[in-house]
C-alpha cells in the first residue's frame, strides 16, 4: 500500500465512520475537564480539614455536588474516548481488540456510575448540612 491520496488507494477500506464525532467529543470533554478538574483540585486544597465530616459535608452541597457530577461524566467520557485510541493504536488483533474495548467500556461506565452514585448518596442522604 502506497502513501498517496489517490482515491484508488483508499477505496474499499470503509468509511471514516464515527471518527469526527469521536474527535469533537474528545475536545468538548477536554474543555470540561480543564475547568472542572481544576475546580476540584482548588476546592480540595482549600478545604480546612479532610476528615469525613468535612469532605462529605462539602460534597453534599448542591453547589459542589452538581459540578462534581458534571466532572465525573466529562472525565469518564474523555477516558473512554482516550483509552480507545490507545487500544486501537497498539492492539492489532481484532478479537483481542474487541475484548479490550468491551473491558474499557465497562470500566468507564462502571466506575463513572460508582462515582455518580457516591456523590448522589452524599447529596441526598449523607453529610451534615
Amino acid at each position, binding site marked *: 500500500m502506497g502513501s498517496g491520496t489517490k482515491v484508488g488507494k483508499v477505496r474499499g477500506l470503509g468509511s471514516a465512520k464515527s471518527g469526527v464525532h469521536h474527535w469533537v467529543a474528545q475536545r468538548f470533554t477536554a474543555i470540561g475537564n480543564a475547568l472542572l478538574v481544576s475546580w476540584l483540585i482548588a476546592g480540595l486544597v482549600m478545604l480546612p480539614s479532610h*476528615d469525613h465530616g468535612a469532605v462529605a459535608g462539602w460534597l453534599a452541597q448542591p453547589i459542589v455536588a452538581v459540578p462534581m457530577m458534571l466532572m465525573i461524566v466529562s472525565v469518564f467520557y474523555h477516558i473512554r474516548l482516550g483509552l480507545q485510541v490507545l487500544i486501537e493504536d497498539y492492539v492489532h488483533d481484532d478479537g483481542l481488540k474487541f475484548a479490550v474495548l468491551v473491558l474499557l467500556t465497562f470500566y468507564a461506565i462502571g466506575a463513572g456510575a460508582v462515582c455518580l452514585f457516591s*456523590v448522589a448518596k452524599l447529596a441526598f442522604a449523607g453529610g451534615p448540612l
Partner: protein
Amino acid sequence: MAQSRPRPLSPHLTIWRWGPHMLISILHRVTGDGLAIVGGLGLTWWLFAAASGPADYATFQYYVWRADEADLAGLIANYVSRIVLIGLSWAFFQHLFSGLRHLVMDMGAGYELKTNRTWSLVVMAAAVIATIALWAYIFTRGAH
C-alpha cells in the same frame, strides 16, 4: 488470528528526530493514560469511601495520608500514595497544558518550527512549576 484488511499506516516513532515536540506528544499520551487508569480508579475509591461512611473513609485516609507512626506498612503506603498523588498532579498539569496546546494547534496555529519548539518547552516547564507550587502550598499549609 483474525485481522482486518491492512489500513494505511502513518510513519511511527522510529523515523522522527527527537525534540521537544516529540517528547511533549509522548508525554500527552502517557499522562492521559496514567490519569485515566490510576486517577480514574483513585477518584472512584475516594468518592466510594466518602459515601460509605466515616469508618471506611478513615481507612482510606489512613493508607493514603496518615498511618500510625508505629505501623511500618502503613507508612510505606503513605509514602507510595504521596508519590502517586504528586505524580498524578504533575500528570494533570502536563496533560492540561499540552491539551491546551492541542486545542490551539487544532485551530491551525503554532506550527512554525521555532514557535512550536518554544511552546513545547514552555508547556513542560509550566507543568513542573505548577506541580511544585501546588505541593509547596499544601505542605506549608499543613494539609490533613
